[in-house]
């Protein structure tokens, strides 16, 4: 990390833990919950957001002095929408099955609050290089939670990771299943995503009491 100054390092490292966009800033939750039943979808979503937020932050930061503040939301939305169209069309071209699975949630990156939040809070007031780092940092913080949730839901829900059977075969009763383990189908249902994120928040805040909220 010697290439980055101390200040720049914090831009990337803070959102990973103590200023995480999902668990602390409460942004970008919708997609974090809806597509995490499988690890693969979570990773694709995290990468898409990384691209949109990284590039979008740079573009907005370059334009920050010429955007009239009254219409900035519309300008920001147009920038994001353009980038999301690129992601969407790329997915449709190279991973059609996956894009079917993600359905409208790729489009909903446009309204992912992390992106608008970072544009408003950071890119409008900082230079392109720092904005880029900030975008990458926040997208990584988002991706970490997404991948963690996807990991637990896929592992406990269907006993696989990225489609590989890591816990053995549920039908032939090998691996863990030989000892009477059953897949917890409940983990695949959407409400469990909320509860898993709730538990992650619980763990994170009990490790760092400074983050505990007032009632």
């Amino acid at each position: 990390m010697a290439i980055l100054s101390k200040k720049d390092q914090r831009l990337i490292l803070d959102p990973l833990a103590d200023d995480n966009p999902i668990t602390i800033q409460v942004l970008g939750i919708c997609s974090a919950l809806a597509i995490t039943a499988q690890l693969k979808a979570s990773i694709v979503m995290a990468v898409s957001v990384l691209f949109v937020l990284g590039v979008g932050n740079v573009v907005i930061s370059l334009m920050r002095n010429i955007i009239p503040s009254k219409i900035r939301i519309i300008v920001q939305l147009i920038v994001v929408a353009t980038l999301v169209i690129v992601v969407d069309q790329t997915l449709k071209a190279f991973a059609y099955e996956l894009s079917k699975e993600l359905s409208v949630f790729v489009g909903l990156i446009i309204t992912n609050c992390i992106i608008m939040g970072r544009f408003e809070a950071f890119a409008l007031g900082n230079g392109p290089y720092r904005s880029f780092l900030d975008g990458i940092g926040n997208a990584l913080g988002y991706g970490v939670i997404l991948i963690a949730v996807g990991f637990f839901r896929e592992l406990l829900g269907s006993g696989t990771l990225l489609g590989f059977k890591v816990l053995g075969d549920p039908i032939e009763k090998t691996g863990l299943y030989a000892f009477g383990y059953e897949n917890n189908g409940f983990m695949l249902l959407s409400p469990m995503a909320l509860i898993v994120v709730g538990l992650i928040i619980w763990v994170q805040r009990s490790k760092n009491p400074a983050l505990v909220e007032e009632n």
Partner: protein
Amino acid sequence: MLEHIELFFKSIFIDNMVFATFLGMCSYLAVSKKVSTAVGLGAAVIFVLAVTVPINWLLDQYILRDGALAWLGPEYAEYDLSFLSFILFIATIATMVQLVEIVVEKFSPSLYNSLGIFLPLIAVNCAILGGSLFMQSRDIQTLGLAFNYGISSGIGWFLAILAIAAIREKIRYSNVPPPLRGLGITFIITGLMAIGFMSFGGMLTGGDEEEGVASPTTESAQTLEENENNQPVAMIDAEIANEKEN
């Protein structure tokens, strides 16, 4: 008429925006500390959805979808502009939100002040864009149905935020473990509510697919326990299929 009623109840209870598809969670979590602001935001969301979904339906029908430009002349019938839908939809929504902002500021300054930053942020509420995208992907047939879909999914969102705001006002008096306070417990409560709402799933099928699973709301707490302990595999599969379809 029947399909209108069906769509109405389906979008409020079964496909509830918050509990089934997790749309609009950011403002749902951020504005649900007090019932009064929650009601204000909920009403604004109903209004914006009811206006934008039909407008976007028209755009989709006559400009965007494959072959929609046929009304311009036969040489345009080949065009498929559907990749532009994100931009056009979001432009409609941003305009409408601006309009709502002006109207609210004029007629109810107190509501305007209490909503603060969240009013312009309706434009980036995923429930609104999600409404239009679901309208597109579910192939809603007529303008009337699109209007119905917009308004009823708005009502579903309104009910959800109202319920969580009421619960959060009460939970202030209970002894929650400190790390769970605030955000954590809200997540878990929402998860439990979502499980409760899943029992609405059998409402419109008349129980023929999932017989015996659909139960009235009064027993939702009981169903919840049943679900956790010995949920029939068929029901889980049906639910997953449902989710995928959406």
